[in-house]
């Protein structure tokens, strides 16, 4: 009987530790800020305004491109929207190629409307690396 109770306590403790450990893992990982060149952003906005690079006004595509090109993680990626600041978009991206999970926060550096381009402001790996 005592042995059973002891097992239960151990089990509950393990669950609590795992949950709190995960939380800590996700929220304590520091963000990596991305250098934004405003002149380059304006040039890109100008291209988009002239009908080119339409993908730049879609935050989802910009997030995927960032993963593909900047972090060299190509291919299919599961995406979940996460909380972000005002005027920002946030995604948790889980590439199918490996166990890494990446969170990205995007904002619009030139115009904050639906015709404005998005860029990744910061990112972090929250699992593995």
């Amino acid at each position, binding site marked *: 009987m005592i042995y059973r109770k002891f097992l239960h306590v151990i089990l509950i403790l393990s669950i609590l530790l795992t949950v709190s450990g995960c939380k800590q893992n996700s929220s304590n990982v520091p963000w990596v800020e991305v250098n934004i060149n405003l002149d380059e952003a*304006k*040039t890109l*906005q*100008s*291209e988009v*305004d*002239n*009908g*080119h*690079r*339409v*993908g730049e*006004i*879609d935050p*989802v*595509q910009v997030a*995927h*491109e960032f993963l*593909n*090109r900047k972090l060299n993680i*190509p*291919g*299919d*990626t*599961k*995406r979940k929207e996460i909380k972000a600041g005002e*005027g920002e978009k946030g995604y948790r991206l889980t590439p199918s190629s490996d166990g890494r999970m990446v969170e990205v926060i995007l904002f619009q550096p*030139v*115009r*904050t*409307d*639906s*015709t404005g381009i998005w860029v990744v402001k910061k990112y972090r790996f929250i699992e593995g690396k």
Partner: protein
Amino acid sequence: MKKVILVALLACFTFSVFLIGNTSKSGGIVESANEDPWEQVENLNYLFWTADEKIENDVKKLQLDLSLTGKQMEKLKELGLQEGYLFSEGRRCKDDAAKDDAVTFNQRVDETFANIDKEVRVLLGKNTTTFAWWENEKMYRLNWLAEKEKKSKEEIGITSTDDRELVYATQYNGYTNLEIALPDKYVKFANLGWWDDIPDSIEPYYSNPPYTANVYYETTNKSVLNVLVREVGPYNEDDNYWDSATASNPRRMFTDLALGEPEAEAAKLRGYNDGKDQFGRVVNQPAGVDLTEEVAAQLRLAPQQNDWVWVRYSDLP
């Protein structure tokens, strides 16, 4: 009796005044200096940066008709180039959040072109009001396109138009040197393996990447084969115009347009969708494909230069 005659005379007079008023509105090409012969759209860019033979002759005619110097022509060409780069001058519009974004965007575009128009007026002086090139070009181009398509259909074998279209090609800065952009986002998604973002109902049609296209430039008889579709655009992202509305992978938007007619082309040349793209933005080029500078160079198009090219879509979903 007198009353009847008086009423009849009055009616005739009113009718004549109405007629004269209407004739003076529609009869002249451009009535006042306030009306814009360039229509405040990107026609200077189209005029000076399209490699087409007819348009090049139009430029020569413009110079002769308006007695413009070489320096003035250079300035016009430069303004044409500026038209393609000035849109982002607009302010941040956080305060305008309640307004429709595209309306605000179009207002900014208008402001930009109004400034260019001012410069054109200063440059051309009195001649500003005598040049109405764009209306003629639109009519000519629509007929020209129809003729070309008809002729191509009459040809036998590999030049059948079943899977190729004559579309206006513009240039853009790509992710890679050798790529093109077409207005179907799912082609790009499939090529990059972003399956999670392609709806389940559509995914089966896009299951065989990589998707490429062949581009052929008749003027120079040069082709670029199997170019990867790496980006979305020009202008739209759901305009798979190489698919008909009843195809197995049906055209997702603008299904009333003819097979092979890009929405941006219809918007620019025929005022379709009020001359706007799927986002409500004013369309300034009748573009159906975007080429990187490298692809354009292989076709013998100079940097910034645009023109009508054949694109073979047989490989696309």
